[in-house]
């Protein structure tokens, strides 16, 4: 019974991330794209999938991972997300440098570009903060004040970026993945909010020094 639930959760996650990737792999547009462009596109889809995994891991919604294991995995997946975004941007740069310069300087004619670029900078900022967190001596409370708004920017930026693009992704699986990304992020933020109110987490208490 419990095992069945665990299997179901992981199967659902695999489908949520895997189906859009498989659907995109069947896109007729791929026939007219070079390998670097194709790689860049799929790196973007994988990145969106990882943006779904991140809140699920940190929220502890993926049994049987313990809270500790979930947090460790969240760090590693964060690193993978950074790599995926870099591959996405560098690949697109090689495909068409002028289009990428337009996007990165916020002068692109395509409405989705600024959302992607803002999400990219937010991902870079979180990665930098995470790398420096120990050195800066950031406490959990301070860390969350920095990370949660950036995470919200990443989620909204990625979803809007992706939905506005007319590319290899199949429309329905893309919309479903985007909806799940939003739902997972909302759930984590809501849970944090609820947990914070009646009983602050250890180390988060602000009542007395």
């Amino acid at each position, binding site marked *: 019974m419990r095992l069945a639930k665990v299997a179901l959760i992981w199967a659902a996650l695999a489908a949520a991330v895997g189906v859009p990737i498989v659907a995109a792999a069947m896109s007729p*547009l791929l026939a007219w794209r070079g390998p670097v462009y194709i790689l860049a596109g799929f790196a973007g889809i994988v990145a969106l999938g990882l943006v779904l995994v991140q809140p699920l891991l940190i929220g502890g919604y993926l049994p049987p991972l313990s809270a500790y294991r979930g947090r460790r995995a969240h760090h590693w997946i964060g690193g993978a997300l950074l790599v995926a975004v870099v591959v996405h941007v560098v690949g697109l740069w090689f*495909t068409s440098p002028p289009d990428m310069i*337009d996007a990165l300087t916020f*002068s692109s*004619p*395509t409405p989705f570009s600024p959302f992607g670029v803002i999400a990219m900078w937010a991902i870079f900022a979180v990665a930098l903060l995470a790398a420096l967190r120990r050195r800066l001596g950031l406490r959990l409370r301070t860390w969350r004040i920095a990370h949660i708004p950036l995470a919200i920017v990443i989620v909204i930026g990625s979803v809007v970026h992706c939905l*506005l693009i007319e590319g290899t992704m199949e429309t329905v699986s893309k919309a479903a993945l985007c909806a799940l990304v939003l739902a997972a992020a909302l759930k984590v933020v809501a849970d944090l909010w609820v947990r914070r109110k009646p009983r602050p987490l250890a180390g988060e208490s602000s009542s007395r020094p």
Partner: protein
Amino acid sequence: MTNVVFNRRNLLLAAGGSVVATGVSGLLLPARADGLAPTDSMSGGSNNYRKGAPIVDRIGKGGFWMSGTVRRAGDGTPLAGQRIQIWAHTTEGQEHEPQSHGATLTDKNGAFRLEMPQIIPVFGQPHGHLAYDSGEFKTVFLRPVMRSARETSLEAHFVLQPA
């Protein structure tokens, strides 16, 4: 019923307002009452442009029609014999590749029409590129977007001003 009371203050305000209004509209519209405004270049329009692409009867194997008009700013006179370069990411090549580029000339009505391979979405939008870049008028780069990737034609119109 509404009683409109004029006193010195609101009369002055009304008069001042009308002076400002005529003054501003006079500045915005110089002596060009029936003027046709020149087309501005679109952002990203010049991306992957290749100066001097040859005049061709058709780009590649064709199947898709790019058409439009070229007129003079101000009076809107059709401009004949103007060279328009067209390029896009199509079923036969990427935007930067030479075989994706070709040019054509406008006819006596200022119209142009060039057959090219089917445009497909690239960088998130199905779009084409057109350039007027011959020197007599100011250079203009256009980047029209197709309403749907399934369409088999696209239009773009130039209104040029002297260089």
